[in-house]
């Protein structure tokens, strides 16, 4: 195949892929998944959730400026970021689970690259026509007609990129307000930059790069294919049934010497990554199953059983090749490995739910002043100072009472107060959903151990209560 004299170029020109429209079960499934994912992605920021007057009423909001993450009834503070870590762990295990069960289902159905490429291809077919018309147009010289069609297509692509890619910003601010600000030009510059970047990447990746992203840029297929095993469902061409390929005419001329594959190339024509599944499993295959739809249609036309190309495990392919019965699909979905993954996955989820249920919405932390560690006052008493932080994680202001446990003689006061007004407890109010920072002075008699452990306590004194404590230490000069 190689010319013996000229060395092959290190770089290859992209071969155009002009997938043909196809209809069938998997195509409809893809439509459904696309509609669902786009609806979720698009609609989520517009769902309202009443949290009272002190918190945003957007159901899902990533409030970077105030470092809060709202998700329906759940509000996450930066120090609770382990929930996000937990979600990432769940996503990882979920990937193991899905991949070991149904192969690269993510790639074929839910990946944004797939969803947008699919959308763009429908636009392309609507404007340029199906595969053959597209091929013809691609070969045609540039002229007014071609240019006009191209411009229309790119414009529609750009429009889609703008309204879908641009919707990302609504997750980071109040959506209705931001949309208004966006159109009258008063939104923060980063908004416009984000929309511009996401519009551009959607346009380029969905419109022009397409399968190049899947094959060359994306690390996912390398990872996912490594997680497949002989019991995972993958799109398989059943060569033991299809070979020897031959057209209907040939097969009729010499019955018995040809398999079921008519060599009609429909499976290749519909493939969005432009590969031939009959060459066996390969990295370019995103398991979208459109070739299954295409081939099933051909089989139906010639009155042969469907499933020449089908989801099939390697094990069951071996069995079938040897003439045994294929395993039912349920056996690959429910087996030790998938059940184990599911158990791990759901226990992480349950643990997080439990932690969410019992977490406290009031927190205290105290940091001792180290310079100086202690101060001797004129009557000899010793004073330590602490920076105390009170976190009121509820969406309403609360009154708090700071006290100490384990140092009964201690007197507390804070900046603005004096020793004379000191008492055994301190009262302060903390605004809704915020942190109050207090410098707290603690006075103890000079007699006592050089280091005395005690606890800071905090109690919300308003109707619903809540409390927390934090260990601290009092230092004295050595006697």
């Amino acid at each position: 195949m190689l010319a013996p004299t000229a060395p092959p170029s290190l770089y290859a020109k992209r071969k155009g892929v002009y997938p043909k429209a196809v209809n069938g079960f998997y195509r409809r499934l893809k439509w459904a998944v696309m509609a669902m994912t786009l609806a979720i992605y698009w609609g989520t920021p517009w769902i309202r959730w009443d949290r009272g007057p002190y918190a945003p009423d957007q159901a899902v909001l990533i409030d970077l400026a105030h470092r809060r993450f709202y998700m329906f009834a759940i509000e996450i503070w930066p120090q609770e970021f382990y929930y996000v870590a937990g979600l990432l762990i769940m996503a990882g295990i979920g990937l193991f689970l899905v991949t070991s069960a149904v192969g690269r289902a993510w790639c074929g159905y839910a990946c944004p690259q797939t969803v947008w490429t699919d959308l763009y291809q429908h636009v392309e077919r609507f404007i340029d026509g199906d595969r053959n018309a597209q091929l013809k147009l691609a070969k045609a010289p540039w002229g007014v007609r071609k240019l006009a069609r191209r411009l229309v297509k790119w414009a529609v692509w750009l429009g889609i990129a703008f309204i879908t890619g641009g919707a990302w910003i609504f997750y980071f601010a109040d959506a209705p307000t931001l949309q208004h600000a966006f159109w009258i030009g008063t939104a923060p510059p980063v908004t416009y930059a984000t929309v511009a970047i996401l519009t551009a990447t959607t346009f380029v990746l969905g419109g022009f790069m397409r399968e190049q992203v899947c094959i060359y840029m994306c690390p996912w297929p390398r990872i996912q294919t490594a997680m497949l095993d002989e019991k995972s469902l993958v799109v398989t061409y059943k060569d033991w049934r299809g070979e020897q390929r031959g057209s209907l005419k040939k097969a009729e001329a010499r019955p018995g010497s040809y398999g079921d594959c008519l060599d009609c190339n429909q499976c290749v024509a519909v493939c969005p990554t432009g590969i031939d599944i009959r060459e066996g499993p390969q990295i370019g295959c995103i398991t979208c199953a459109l070739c299954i739809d295409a081939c099933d249609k051909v089989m139906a036309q010639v009155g042969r059983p469907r499933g020449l190309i089908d989801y099939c495990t390697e094990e069951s392919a071996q069995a079938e090749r040897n003439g045994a019965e294929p395993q039912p699909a349920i056996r690959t979905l429910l087996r030790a490995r998938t059940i184990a993954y599911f158990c791990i996955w759901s226990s992480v989820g349950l643990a997080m739910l439990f932690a969410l249920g019992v977490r406290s919405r009031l927190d205290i932390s105290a940091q001792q002043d180290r310079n100086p560690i202690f101060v001797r006052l004129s009557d000899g008493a010793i004073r330590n100072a602490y920076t105390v932080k009170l976190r009121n994680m509820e969406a309403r202001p609360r009154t708090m009472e700071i006290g100490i446990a384990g140092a009964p003689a201690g007197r507390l006061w804070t900046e603005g107060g004096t020793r004379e007004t000191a008492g055994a407890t301190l009262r302060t109010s903390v605004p809704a959903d915020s942190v109050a920072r207090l410098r707290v002075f603690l006075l103890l008699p000079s007699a006592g151990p050089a280091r005395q452990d005690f606890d800071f306590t905090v109690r919300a004194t308003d109707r619903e209560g809540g409390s927390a404590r934090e260990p601290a230490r009092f230092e004295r000069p050595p006697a």
Partner: protein
Amino acid sequence: MADEKRVDPATGTEIKHHEWDGIQELDTPLPRWWLWTFYATILFAIGYTIAYPAWPMIDRATGGMLGWSSRGALEKELEARERQMAPIRLAIAETPITALPGRPQLMQAAVEGGRAAFRVHCVQCHGSGAAGSRGYPNLNDDDWLWGGDLIAIEKTITDGVRNPDHAATRTSLMPAFGKDQLLTLEQIDDVVAHVRVISGQDKRSAAAQRGARVFADNCAVCHGPAGEGNRAVGAPRLTDAIWLYGGDADTIRETVWNSRHGVMPRWNDKLDKATIRMLAAYVHSLGGGDAVPSVAGGGR
């Protein structure tokens, strides 16, 4: 070489010569856009080194066409910060210090600003935590030579202590009782014993009894009949647990013999009003500051 070439029959692609665990690699060509991206990064790098400081020369790097430098960026940032702070500084300078606590936001800005200024101007003597050291007062405690309310602290910072060229400066005049032969050695020993008693460090003794008379005649005028001190003249209280130079007999004897004349610069010739006010607010916030005296009060 050409005869060594092995071609994969399925794809028509050349096979590389290495092999690992039976796995061989195809020499599949990269897509062309990849090459373009690579060229683009090279172009970007060239553009970048022209626009920004990049190439090391003998004593400096190339400057870059945009004139950007990290030092310049820092200066700009500092300028912006100063511009941002200007109205706050102005407000602080215009607000009487006694009115600051009533304006919590301004007060907080003053304390923060004072904290920064303290790090620059005051830590050399008073220490980074303002805990002082021998001869340099601890500003965290509640013992004040010249008063610990906001007004007194501001005045001390403004005019300093014992600046000979400055009329408004604060000066305390403890005589050198021994060196100037105002008291005899025995009298000094007695008065030291007395001071040790009134500060609760020693039990009563005959010497202390004698010293009480010496104290009444020579010391009470500044330190008060009971040794309670007098902030109007910067005379320390002798009855408390805090000693600027030390409360042991030898140190007190040395103090009475030689006297102590600590100094502090006046800052009104170096710092502006706002900074001094911020420093006062910060020092006051350290926890030992006195309440601002009511209208009638004043002094201690």
